[in-house]
């Protein structure tokens, strides 16, 4: 079982002495983090800046030592093992290429440290440079390269050492959009080709969704959810995940159990806008309302239909969620149109994304007019309002490896 795990974090915490001269407060940057990464996986750690993801990365590479908890690599405990004794290499945020060495020597650096024979170094470095189409650049100095080329040098400088785990610390952040998309494709291709475990740290949710096999979403030093891009997007485990990955409409309130005459069960959230429902089954709701009274209903903008008239009276409309609001903003995206409805005195407007071939043509919607936003209970997700409760609930579902994780 364990040998399929490239990396295993068990309740890992890291705290620093607070960075101020007066107080002796402790700053908890990573808070009892548990996660498991399979061999050959493209695993992303996604979170806003300051969420502890870079510290997590540095603990994997060995540049930081955890304050408590256990880190295992291929089953071996590596807490406190010096970076050069682990088979982990990093692609740094701003590449950190050596400006005094040429491309070849940059890539060869790790092999030289390992005292690999010079002919082997030559062969391996050239093979890597060929892989990223930089074989003619071997003699160039780093500052003569473009951003994308530097990025590729940084990538192969790490990969030439054949790491068990390759860490990528926001490696695409410094590139412009087009180059970034190009590099994304290249990254995935290289990862599949080599079968190396990639741990990719980013704050860009789009990037994480596109590239990853699985994503861990971090907030304030804790993991809020681990799952495939689809799981994370379709079934966010917490309000934070719902808001951070994509756009979400969130309605907070008290949750209640409900069933209709046909025998279907729902979780209803009593909000200031009335009752909003979600289907009661695993995936949409992961808990019984009696256990978690304070909860939120989440619905993605593209699941919402916009109507001029109330849906009540239509067949099967009894369980539909429906709220009414004033159209305050309309943004045309081409294939879709995003509209914002201001509902009563709610601070955040409801966001809906309408495909432009839908029956109600978005351009005909008028600003200032009132419309109904309607969605199916099956498209609603219920999550606990408290992130910690959400994380505890998420644990058994999203750790399919069935190991020692405690829920």
């Amino acid at each position, binding site marked *: 079982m364990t040998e399929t795990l490239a990396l295993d974090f068990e309740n890992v915490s890291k705290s620093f002495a607070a960075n101020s*001269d007066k107080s002796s407060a402790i700053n908890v940057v990573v808070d009892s983090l548990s996660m498991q990464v399979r061999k050959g996986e493209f695993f992303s750690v996604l979170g806003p800046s300051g969420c502890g993801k870079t510290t997590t990365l540095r603990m994997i*590479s*060995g*540049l930081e030592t955890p304050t408590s908890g256990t880190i295992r690599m291929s089953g071996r405990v590596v807490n406190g093992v*010096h*970076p*050069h004794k682990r088979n*982990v*290499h*990093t692609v*740094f*945020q*701003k590449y*950190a*290429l*050596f*400006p*005094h060495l*040429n491309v070849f020597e940059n890539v060869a*650096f*790790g092999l030289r*440290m*390992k005292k690999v024979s010079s002919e082997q170094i030559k062969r391996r470095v050239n093979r890597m440079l060929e892989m990223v189409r930089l074989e003619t650049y071997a003699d160039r*100095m780093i*500052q003569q390269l473009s951003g994308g080329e530097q990025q590729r040098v940084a990538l192969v*400088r*790490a990969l030439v*050492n054949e790491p068990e785990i390759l860490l990528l610390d926001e490696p695409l952040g410094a590139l412009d959009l087009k180059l970034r998309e190009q590099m994304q494709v290249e990254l995935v291709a290289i990862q599949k080709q080599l079968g190396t475990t990639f741990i990719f740290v980013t704050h860009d949710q789009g990037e994480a969704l596109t590239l990853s096999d699985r994503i861990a979403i971090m907030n304030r030093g804790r993991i809020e959810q681990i799952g495939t891009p689809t799981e994370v997007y379709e079934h966010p485990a917490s309000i934070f995940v719902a808001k951070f990955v994509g756009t979400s409409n969130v309605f907070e309130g008290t949750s209640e159990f409900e069933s209709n005459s046909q025998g279907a069960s729902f979780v209803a959230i009593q909000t200031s806008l009335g009752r909003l429902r979600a289907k009661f089954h695993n995936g949409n709701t992961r808990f019984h309302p009696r256990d978690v009274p304070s909860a939120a209903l989440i619905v993605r903008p593209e699941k919402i239909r916009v109507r001029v008239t109330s849906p009540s009276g239509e067949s099967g409309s009894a369980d539909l969620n429906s709220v009414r609001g004033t159209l305050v903003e309309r943004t045309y995206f081409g294939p879709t149109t995003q509209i914002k409805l201001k509902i009563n005195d709610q601070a955040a407007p409801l966001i809906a994304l309408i495909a432009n071939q839908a029956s109600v043509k978005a351009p005909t919607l008028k600003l200032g007019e009132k419309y109904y936003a309607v969605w199916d209970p099956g498209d609603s997700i219920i999550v606990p309002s408290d992130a910690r409760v959400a994380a505890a609930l998420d644990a058994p579902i999203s750790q399919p490896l069935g190991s020692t994780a405690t829920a």
Partner: protein
Amino acid sequence: MNHATPASVPLSPSPKKKFPLMLVPSALWFAIFLIIPILIVMSLSLLHKGSYGRIEFTLDFSNYARALEPVYLKIILRSLWLATYTTGLCLLLAYPLAYLMARSRPRTRKILLALVVVPFWTNFVIRIHALKLIIGETGLLNQILTELSIITRPLQMTDNAFGVGMGMVYNYLPFMVLPLFVALEKLDFTLLDAAYDLGASRLQSFFRVLFPLSMPGIVTGSLFVFIPAFGEFVIPDMLGGSQSMYVGNIITETFLKSRDWPFGSALSTFLVLLAMVAFMIVLSRENKTQGAKF
């Protein structure tokens, strides 16, 4: 009809570079106070010494022949050695300090920087005297060591080569620290993380990354120390005792005591040439490793 092809039209109004006006003050300064005096010294070195320190305007190369006599050659070599080990010791002491300064928080950095610069607020001669009060025969250090019964007789730390070395390092250290600090401060320390990440030990990271990247600072600092240290005469005078003779002392004596200006000039020219050679070697090496700069 129109024969002027685009290529024949000069792109810039004139290929001749204009002399920038703002260089005039410094150029004048250099000409009057550096280049002309050196030229005077150089011409003096080719003249003949008359009686009572007068100068006879006859061409005479014997001054140079005399400068190469073993007595003087030995002193020049001794001075070279003094400058070399002063530079080496300063580098050894200054590097960790400059590194610490570059990596410390702004506040700590300011304090450290002040500590390096503060001695300059005191006159040079007074500072050397202060050092004498500490390491002298009845100085503070000897008193403490005697009180603690570590030694029975005072250690001889002045009026010998040791005293000269102490004075030299003490005085020239800041000239090494500051350029090193400037070079290290600009350095991207994630490069060290990258080196560790690629399997380098601390020592390897230092010699393969930090050291080559701080080379510009090392070179500047070394020149700042080496060149003045080579001609230094006050410190040997004050801390070296009567036996201590370095090229700087010889030159001052030749000029002021024996009033032999032509010979003094020959020795000075020698010094200038040696400094220039050292400088050229360093510069050419710098140019070869152009890529190392960023």
